[in-house]
């Protein structure tokens, strides 16, 4: 809904030559794309490479993107194709696109950790998750409700305003303050 609007604006900026606008699109979809790619390429570091390649392909093809579908839908297809091509190029069985982790052979082939998938990485991911969740728990009720309605329920500011019986401007401010409060705890972890 809302994301599509700002995606369109960002895409237009990239098409006008503003490369940095693409960073925001990458930031917005990187984890979804990595999760998607990981269904095909189990190794986390390889999945990261494939995700990077997929974004690059999207960037190169973006001038021809006419916005007939949502950016994410388009990006999603590019990522799937990149992952499939990667497997073919790596001479791996081009998978029955739903790898089963319970299958010991497949697990052996795709599931082993590489050096880059260090326990530190996984610990950091878990720390990020805990920090954000903890910060949400500590939010005042009105801020927590606003951010949850937005992020979990996907409601628009107007819908949230109706649900919380307050002006749209208040919703915008509450969501922002919630993000700032979470960000204050998250930032030191990433610096």
């Amino acid at each position, binding site marked *: 809904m809302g994301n599509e*609007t*700002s*995606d369109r604006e960002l895409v237009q900026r990239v098409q006008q030559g503003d490369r*940095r606008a693409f960073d925001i699109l*990458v930031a917005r979809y990187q984890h979804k794309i990595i*999760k998607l790619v990981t269904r095909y390429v189990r190794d986390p570091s390889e999945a990261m490479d494939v995700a990077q390649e997929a974004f690059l392909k999207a960037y190169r*093809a*973006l001038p021809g993107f006419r916005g007939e579908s949502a950016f994410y839908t388009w990006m999603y297809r590019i990522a799937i194709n990149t992952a499939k091509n990667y497997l073919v190029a790596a001479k791996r069985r081009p998978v029955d696109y739903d790898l089963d982790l319970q299958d010991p052979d497949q697990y052996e082939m795709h599931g082993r950790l590489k050096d880059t998938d260090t326990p530190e990485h996984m610990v950091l991911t878990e720390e990020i998750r805990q920090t*954000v969740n903890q910060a949400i728990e500590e939010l005042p009720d009105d801020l927590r409700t606003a951010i949850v309605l937005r992020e979990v329920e996907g409601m628009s500011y107007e819908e949230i305003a109706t649900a919380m019986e307050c002006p749209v401007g208040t919703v915008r401010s509450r969501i922002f303050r919630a993000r700032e409060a979470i960000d204050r705890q998250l930032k030191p972890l*990433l610096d």
Partner: protein
Amino acid sequence: MTAHDPSPTREQLSALLDGELPAPEVDLALRRVTRDPELRATAIRYCLITDVIRGDLPTHCSLDLVDRVAQSMDSEPEPAAATVATPPAATAPASAAGRWARRLGGLAVAASVAGLAIVSLQTGDPENASQPELVVVPDAAVPAPAFAQPRSIARSAGNPDRLVSYYVSHVERVAPVGVQTGFSRIVMSEERVSRPREAERDSEAERREDKPE
């Protein structure tokens, strides 16, 4: 609020990422976020927060993919099809327009022969004849080939000798090896002759333009 207080900008960023920023503010906010590294970093963290709340964070969280992609983008040229969105004539600088005119003049004979050939093709095979109009890159409906296509398509779309190129590539595709039609022989030879001449003319003209008045 003072000018040093980042909150108004960050609040704009928050609303922007939600697609809830009023239209008149969007352009300015986007310009800020793409030019201010601190604001960009904040945007990335806001997106990370969203991913955590929505459960989209993978087990192996990426913290540097944005930078990796950005670095790769910076190390390659602008996407070649960037002019597809706007008509080349509207965006081309004046000197390029002059070059265009020269190229057009230089290729008048080749283009007219090719045009004749196209007319002939249209009569014979209307489906193939419509192909030069496919200027816009197909999007992800067929994503794999779409990556390879934009540059060549863009070149032919913004090029005065696109009719010749089209005809040559058409012949390459449809004619069996070693077999050329009369038209193809004319166009091919015209193409071979006109390209070096055209390049010569261009470089000569550029040399003249470079000389101080």
